[in-house]
């Protein structure tokens, strides 16, 4: 069971009920639960969307699209029913924040879904968790059932004449399904492959109806934002990056965990102060800052603010907030191979550049890792990754190419030394041997 850690620098908005038993509906209500949705019903869609816009909240799944704006794209009039789809298919390596959210505050996700539904004029929401989170689905299912029992869901919610239903389910193991259009395909009972865009889901989404798709953390922020006001939430963060977010700090740190920090918080401070610094007093080698798809930062590049814009300026991404810390013992060759092996396994095969590209990069890096590489292989890996960028329906191709390019560009010398070392017969020590031996 995930353990909660804490730090004084945390600003608790979305995590303020964590560890307080808020999966219980009575506790949730005691802690201001279901107040925001009632206010939302009273104030109406325009107020909700304006408040969300004022909050500066940007999508927490990775892309960072402004949430209020996304909700405002849904046409007011529609012949087809509109839907809300909560993306809890969290599968990006390094990311485990929604796991904690579903465990500790499932009602916040439910209330957020209702608020999004009210904002766009939808009567049905779906909460879709990844297949591995079956034990969390049970917690969410219980929360939904409790909300129904109280008359908070179903017909005439809170006695206001408004109807809203929620369906919960899990997937069955496919990273690709975390991509919004693939998620819709999966929910419609098909293989989870992406759809071509446009049309965007806000216009043609689930079952052909206008659909808002948000990451679970994004949606769970909505009740907090409505209660505290959009401007107040925005002020917690930086310009164009409102509020706080959940960061999962993992890998070689003393205190790995999920922490809620203000947007713009310094990455170096997050690693050295919040997460307790590098494990066992070792030196930092590199950081993957926002989930495995984000280009790596070297140890001297981490003095940067954790928001979408500052990270982009630093040549990487804030992504899903999964910060993976690598100490000096890590072989980048091995790490790059493990990363691409994931994308090769998870490529749905729909687009050739992704399907073939991930496979060839994996094959090439495997050859290098096993000692049979040549310097030309590093060029080939770079060439393959560059040719995947922007050439696929969904961002999985980019998600595989971007970290690969980061590794080979920033650590080219290490790749070349590794290849030379093997030629000279130098014994190479792997992470497995170094880290594993101590456990």
């Amino acid at each position: 069971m995930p353990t909660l850690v804490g730090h004084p620098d945390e600003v608790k908005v979305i995590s303020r009920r964590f560890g307080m038993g808020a999966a219980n509906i009575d506790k949730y209500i005691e802690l201001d639960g279901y107040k925001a949705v009632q206010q939302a019903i009273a104030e109406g869609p325009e107020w909700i969307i304006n408040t969300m816009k004022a909050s500066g909240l940007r999508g927490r799944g990775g892309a960072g699209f402004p949430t209020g704006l996304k909700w405002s794209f849904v046409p007011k009039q529609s012949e087809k029913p509109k839907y809300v789809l909560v993306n809890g298919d969290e599968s990006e390596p390094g990311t485990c924040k929604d796991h904690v959210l579903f465990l500790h505050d499932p009602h916040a996700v439910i209330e957020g879904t209702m608020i999004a539904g009210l904002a766009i004029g939808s009567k049905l929401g779906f909460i879709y968790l990844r297949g591995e989170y079956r034990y969390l689905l049970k917690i969410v299912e219980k929360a939904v059932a409790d909300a129904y029992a109280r008359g908070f869901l179903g017909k005439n919610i809170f006695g206001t004449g408004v109807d809203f239903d929620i369906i919960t389910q899990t997937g069955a193991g496919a990273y690709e399904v975390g991509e919004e259009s693939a998620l819709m395909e999966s929910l419609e009972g098909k293989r989870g492959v992406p759809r071509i865009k446009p049309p965007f889901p806000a216009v043609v989404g689930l079952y052909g109806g206008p659909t808002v798709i948000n990451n679970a953390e994004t949606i769970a922020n909505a009740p907090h934002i409505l209660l505290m006001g959009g401007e107040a939430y925005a002020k917690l963060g930086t310009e164009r990056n409102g509020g706080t977010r959940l960061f999962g700090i993992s890998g070689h740190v003393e205190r790995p965990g999920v922490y809620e920090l203000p947007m713009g918080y310094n990455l170096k401070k997050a690693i050295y102060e919040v997460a307790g610094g590098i494990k066992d007093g070792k030196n930092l080698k590199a950081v993957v800052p926002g989930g495995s798809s984000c280009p790596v930062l070297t140890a001297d590049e981490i003095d940067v603010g954790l928001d979408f814009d500052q990270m982009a300026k630093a040549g990487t991404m804030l992504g899903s907030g999964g910060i993976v810390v690598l100490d000096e013992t890590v072989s980048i060759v091995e790490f790059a191979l493990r990363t691409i092996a994931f994308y090769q396994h998870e490529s749905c095969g729909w687009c050739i550049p992704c399907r073939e590209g991930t496979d060839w990069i994996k094959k090439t890096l495997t050859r290098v890792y096993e000692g049979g590489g040549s310097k030309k292989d590093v060029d080939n890996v770079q060439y393959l990754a560059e040719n995947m960028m922007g050439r696929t329906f969904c961002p999985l191709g980019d998600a595989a190419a971007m970290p690969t390019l980061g590794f080979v560009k920033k650590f080219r010398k290490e790749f070349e030394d590794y290849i030379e070392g093997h030629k000279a017969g130098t014994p190479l020590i792997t992470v497995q041997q170094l880290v594993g031996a101590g456990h």
Partner: protein
Amino acid sequence: MSTVANTIFSPELAARFDHLVTIYPLRRSALVPMLLYAQDEVGYISDAVVAEIAQRIGLLELDVRNVLSYYSMLRTKPAGKYNVQVCTNISCMLRGGYEILDHCKSKLGIGHKQVTPDGAFSLEEVECIGACCWAPAMQVNYDFHDNLTTIKVDEILENYRAGQGKDIK
């Protein structure tokens, strides 16, 4: 009472399936959850499971197989009673995920996607299970076990062997 006369599922699951196909705007949406629930009860997606689910939703068996083959958690062969899934993705790898996997291999005497002769355990190396901050981690059926050490793994496996481990479905 199920709407399907000769159901292979328990009365509870059959009733659940009857309900499940009615809640979505389209019946087909129930397919992925049904495959998972059926697998939990039967142990794997057998030909009979495919046939009945196709019938319940009103799809061709080919449509069901097409979806079945896509998702990594769905299997067409039996696993062990306790399916041990060890994560070796980056966050787990950095904190000894491969050592945990190797330890499970030697302890259980089986490799990736194999089942022990007594059918008690099966083993899989899996991609990220969303337990990065509590790495290294593994799942046994749907239960998470994190902050693993080889000693902790031994205790966990012993508990399951003794029938004391959790077995949530």
